């Protein structure tokens, strides 16, 4: 029971963005967080990451309520990959990944061989070897996303939270990133928009209007009724003749006639 939340809620000016969200992650699983735009995925993810403080409810990390942990202790266990991470600063790939060691280094503690090895490994894990001295602003969207993941991996987290990591990427990089995340031997929560991609998750959590609507294995959760009720689309399930896995084909729910 590495990460769990109870009755989590967040509201802005009396508007409920997330309400009553309870969730327990299984160790080592990949949980897909899906839902229409504005359903509260990002907010829930940020509360789980400890960067937003919930209006109600609590997040438990390794059994301890998050408010009782120091921000630094949280960051030593849990890492977050944001959706629109960007910077104006001219920072190299290596420098960006080195940031991941921040929670482990005290004020004037020197950079160690271990830190260096971890950074080198993290860069290698996302296949950015040879990019170390490239400037952030010269990278493509996919490369930037991989840098962010490498930065998170340099935290050596037990839990990795990713907010739409495949957004704005070409299809090759989408698949590469998802495969990379899937194979990490840690607990992962991934907010996703592509429901076909969500099928590779161990479990799926469906959010709608700030509430957790369903939670379970993809085959049980993604039904034609749910696609219609939650996402407002018709979906037909087909079988991939290549590997036998289910594929969803979508249609608009309403005709405009």
């Amino acid at each position, binding site marked *: 029971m590495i990460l769990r939340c109870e009755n989590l809620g967040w509201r802005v000016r009396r508007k409920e963005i997330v309400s009553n969200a309870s969730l327990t992650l299984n160790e080592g699983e990949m949980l897909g967080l899906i839902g229409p735009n504005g359903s509260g995925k990002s907010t829930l993810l940020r509360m789980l990451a400890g960067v937003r403080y919930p209006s109600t409810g609590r997040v438990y990390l390794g059994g301890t309520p998050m408010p009782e942990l120091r921000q630094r202790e949280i960051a030593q266990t849990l890492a977050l990959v944001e959706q629109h991470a*960007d910077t104006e600063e001219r920072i190299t790939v290596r*420098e*960006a990944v080195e940031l991941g060691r*921040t929670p482990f280094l005290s*004020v004037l503690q020197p*950079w160690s061989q271990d830190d*260096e090895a971890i950074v*080198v490994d993290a860069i290698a894990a996302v296949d950015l070897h040879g990019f170390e001295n490239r400037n952030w*602003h010269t990278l493509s969207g996919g490369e930037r996303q991989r840098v962010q993941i490498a930065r998170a991996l340099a935290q050596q987290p037990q839990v990795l939270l990713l907010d739409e990591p495949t957004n704005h990427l070409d299809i090759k990089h989408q698949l590469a990133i998802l495969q990379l995340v899937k194979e990490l031997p840690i607990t992962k929560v991934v907010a996703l928009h592509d429901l076909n991609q969500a099928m590779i998750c161990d479990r799926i959590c469906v959010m709608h209007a700030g509430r957790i609507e369903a939670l379970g294995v993809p085959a049980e959760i993604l039904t034609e009724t749910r696609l219609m009720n939650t996402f407002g689309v018709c979906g037909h399930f087909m079988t991939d003749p290549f590997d036998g896995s289910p594929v969803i084909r979508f249609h608009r729910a309403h005709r405009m006639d």
Partner: protein
Amino acid sequence: MITTDRKSSRSAYRNLWKWAVIAPPLLFFALVAGTAMGETSIPMDVVLKVLANKIFGAAYPVDRIDAGIIWSYRLARAVVAACCGAGLALSGVVLQALLRNSLADPYLLGISAGASTGAVAVAIIGLGGGLISMSAGAFVGALLAFAFVAMLASLAGGGTGLRAAGVIVLAGIAGSQLFNALTAFLIAKSANAEQARGIMFWLMGNLSGVRWADTITVVPAALFGLLVCIFNIRALDAFTFGSDSAASLGIAVKRVQFGLIAVAALMTAAMVSITGSIGFVGLVIPHAMRLVVGTRHRALLPASALAGAIFLIMADIIARIVIPGQVLPIGVVTALVGAPVFALILIGRRAAV
């Protein structure tokens, strides 16, 4: 290839200590230059002899008037200029990192204007009944101005995005205008013509009349600011991708933001209470140093402090010699040098991105 990369990265962390070796001689040279150059040039060897006499008790024979000019007037002035330059540059680095805004600067965000109002309130209308110093007044004014600007920015749509970056600059302009107007109001209401002229001259940034007594304010302010910044090098780096990213890297965001912005305001306030508001140092020096040493704060902080110190000593020399028989407000010099440099940086940056 990997091994050389590793070496360069490790030595980058060691570079912090190299500054302790690089900075003192450069600073010393700048101070001596600042002392030697002026309306009447004094040869370097005389300057060094006077310094040796005063500091090490040597007994070189020197002209007593020269000694007086060097020690009581020019050296004190150069030391204050160095501290102000370092403090303002550090404030700029801190504000730019925490607000993630390359235009953040104590002058643009209205902190200098607020400090001026506070200082003027104490100096002219005698706020606090003589119990609080001009520096304290300036500090309160600086914090009030920043609180006002921050509140305005958050009401107008906070967050850390690109829009928020524009919003806080606009809020800073509003804050500057408001506090400058308050200052003008205080002067018009309470000061006589003579006082008003002196204050207006002081507000433009002025090192005339600076004496050793003033170093009691600026030297500790600059050193304290530098120390606090150095202790927060990693935290400042962690804000590279925004405050949420910093939080996910284990930074207590609110505490660091509040603490460091208070220190930046404190430094600015201390400097403004002695010299009036000097613009563009906090903006131009960090930008220029980013081009030279990169964006990581382990190099950027010491480089900016050093460059700011040297820049302001040089600006003061120019202010003293450019018009014979008259001393220009130093704020005029920094703006005349800083504005075009800033324009070049803006254009260059656009071409680079």
